[in-house]
């Protein structure tokens, strides 16, 4: 246990420089880049005095280094600042949009695993067959499909033409989210109060967006699973298990797949990053009320503090996920020493 704690600590310490660098880059991009946000907001015709007043109020007239220190200090306190456009803190603007994005991203991840792993395993079992070739082709092509196009196509086919699934929002208009909203994760929230109908509605709305993400990002899992399975199926312990009279199905699943899946865990962090990025586009396509849509909306409105806040939250999300993945890996592979 002591070892585990120090392992976590070490990982955290390693993550901090990276987070720090990213936060600095965000600062540089958003403050130092050309374009005067205040003029943009108030218009060029606004009198200089008004512009300067506003700048002072926002702290934008201080020297850059002072602004940087302020920025870090604020973040350390957990304060993401205030919106420049609306009367709200950035944190409240983000509010329940964060769980919306995380929920979408996680289901997208589940979908990509749920599609990718079985396909990869199926391909490995019939190597060099037509099935194998088809699956590998799928894996390579799928990554080149723009995620927003995939979303549009799914909307067209399953939403408009077939009418099986909804194409926007997290819930139907008749379902009021405020009735159950607690954590912001509607799947958990509806189950928590036992509202099965609402749960069904929430899941129904998740299908197309999650599939969009899932299909486009399943390719890597197909390839990884296939490659790992092929390696594993050649090992001696598989042969030895068969020699002991263990049925083939169990050999493939318990001995084969479990070992093959371990390297996949290491990929989860990278895939999560890609999923977050894809989620922004998916949220736009499906009018999903998440951070991605918030980001785009505030970019349009030139609300810099909110833009900055959202990107900071994304950074933290990615770092946390990366840490979680490392811990997960250490937990499931007994050979990892900590």
């Amino acid at each position, binding site marked *: 246990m002591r070892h585990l704690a120090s392992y976590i600590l070490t990982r955290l310490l390693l993550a901090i420089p990276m987070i720090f660098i990213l936060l600095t880059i965000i600062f540089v991009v958003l403050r130092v880049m050309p374009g005067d946000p205040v003029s943009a907001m108030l218009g060029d015709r606004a009198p200089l005095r008004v512009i300067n007043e506003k700048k002072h109020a926002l702290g934008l007239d201080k020297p850059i280094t002072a602004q940087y220190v302020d920025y870090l200090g604020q973040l350390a306190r957990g304060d993401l600042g205030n919106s420049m456009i609306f009367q709200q803190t950035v944190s409240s603007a983000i509010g329940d949009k964060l769980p919306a994005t995380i929920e979408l991203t996680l289901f997208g991840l589940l979908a990509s695993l749920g599609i990718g792993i079985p396909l990869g395993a199926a391909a490995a079992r019939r190597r060099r067959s037509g099935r194998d070739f088809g699956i590998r082709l799928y894996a390579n092509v799928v990554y080149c499909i723009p995620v927003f196009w995939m979303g549009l196509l799914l909307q067209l086919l399953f939403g408009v033409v077939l009418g099986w699934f909804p194409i926007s929002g997290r819930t139907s208009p008749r379902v009021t989210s405020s009735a159950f909203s607690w954590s912001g994760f509607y799947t958990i929230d509806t189950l928590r109060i036992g509202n099965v109908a609402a749960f069904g509605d929430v899941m129904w709305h998740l299908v197309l967006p999650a599939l969009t993400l899932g299909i486009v990002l399943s390719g890597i899992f197909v390839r990884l699973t296939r490659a790992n399975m092929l390696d594993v199926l050649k090992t001696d*312990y598989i042969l030895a298990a068969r*020699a*002991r009279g263990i049925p083939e199905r169990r050999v493939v699943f318990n001995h084969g797949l479990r070992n093959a899946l371990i390297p996949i865990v290491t990929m989860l962090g990278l895939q999560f990053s890609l999923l977050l990025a894809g989620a922004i586009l998916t949220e736009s396509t499906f009018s999903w009320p998440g951070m991605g849509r918030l980001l785009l909306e505030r970019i349009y409105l030139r609300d810099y503090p909110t833009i900055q806040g959202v990107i900071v939250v994304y950074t933290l999300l990615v770092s946390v996920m990366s840490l979680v993945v490392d811990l997960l890996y250490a937990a499931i592979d*007994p050979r990892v020493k900590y």
Partner: protein
Amino acid sequence: MQSTSETILRVNDLTIHYPISIGIVRAVEGVSFTLADGEALGLVGESGCGKSTLGLSLLKLLRPPGRVTGGSILYRGTDILGLDARSLLAMRGRSISMIFQNPLTSLNPLFTVERHFLETIHYHDPSLSRGKALAATGKMLATLGIEEKRLREYPHQLSGGMRQRIMIGLALIMNPDILIADEPTTSLDVIVEAGFTELLANLRKVYKLSIILITHNLGLVAEIADRIAVMYGGKIMEIGSAQDIFARPMHPYTQGLIDCVPNIQLDQKELVTMPGSPPDLVSPPVGCRFAPRCPKVMPVCTERTPRLLEHAPEHSSACWLYERHG
């Protein structure tokens, strides 16, 4: 030395082929031998002579594209090659078991020792309670000289010798009749090897095992085997009691193998080797497969294949030196 016990394994004219892109590898060709109850048979030969392939085929563990294309393997009268899937699974690990060369890679790195045993027991005897299964495992470990606390450890935490013993334990936990050992000591150091031999002799008595020992190590075979079959190029060249093979070898290949083992008691100036290399199994030479390397080769050897015939009591060889040719 006629064994008075029954024959429990009879291999008849077994032929195994591997189709590959450039042709068919004739890995094993017309091999026949028997194994008596309680007997230890050594299967020796160089790498690539087909002995490992033969061993795998006894449990129908051949990897495709390898296939048995002819012959039969009779275990207590039933042809293993004709068994359906369920009977085959029941037989593996329970009637006939196999252990392999590398103990580390033969154990699942994600399974504890305990899990390996419980799984095997469960699939052969599902009605046995977990408690009883654990008890049986504990007993086995004691016989193997492994502490009980090792049950909860993973393979990478154990030493090479321990893993080897675990592998044997897994093979014997269901008390099989026959144990096939494929190069069991090749990846072990000499001291562990000595321990292995002792353990095997012990277990053999306790469990009344019959053993097929597949190896290129003549020393190992001399210690353990009652009878020895010498393989070359996919065929059996000579078969007889261990005594006969070592004291009165018939086949020039056997003689060559024995000569190759460095003897500390002789004043050897150089290591003895056999010139040439193993035959191409895709297009093997016509006639005797050893002819190209044989120091006693005759014209007939490259024309016709000698048959495996009993030229002395309980001692057969396939060689034109003994078979009449005219």
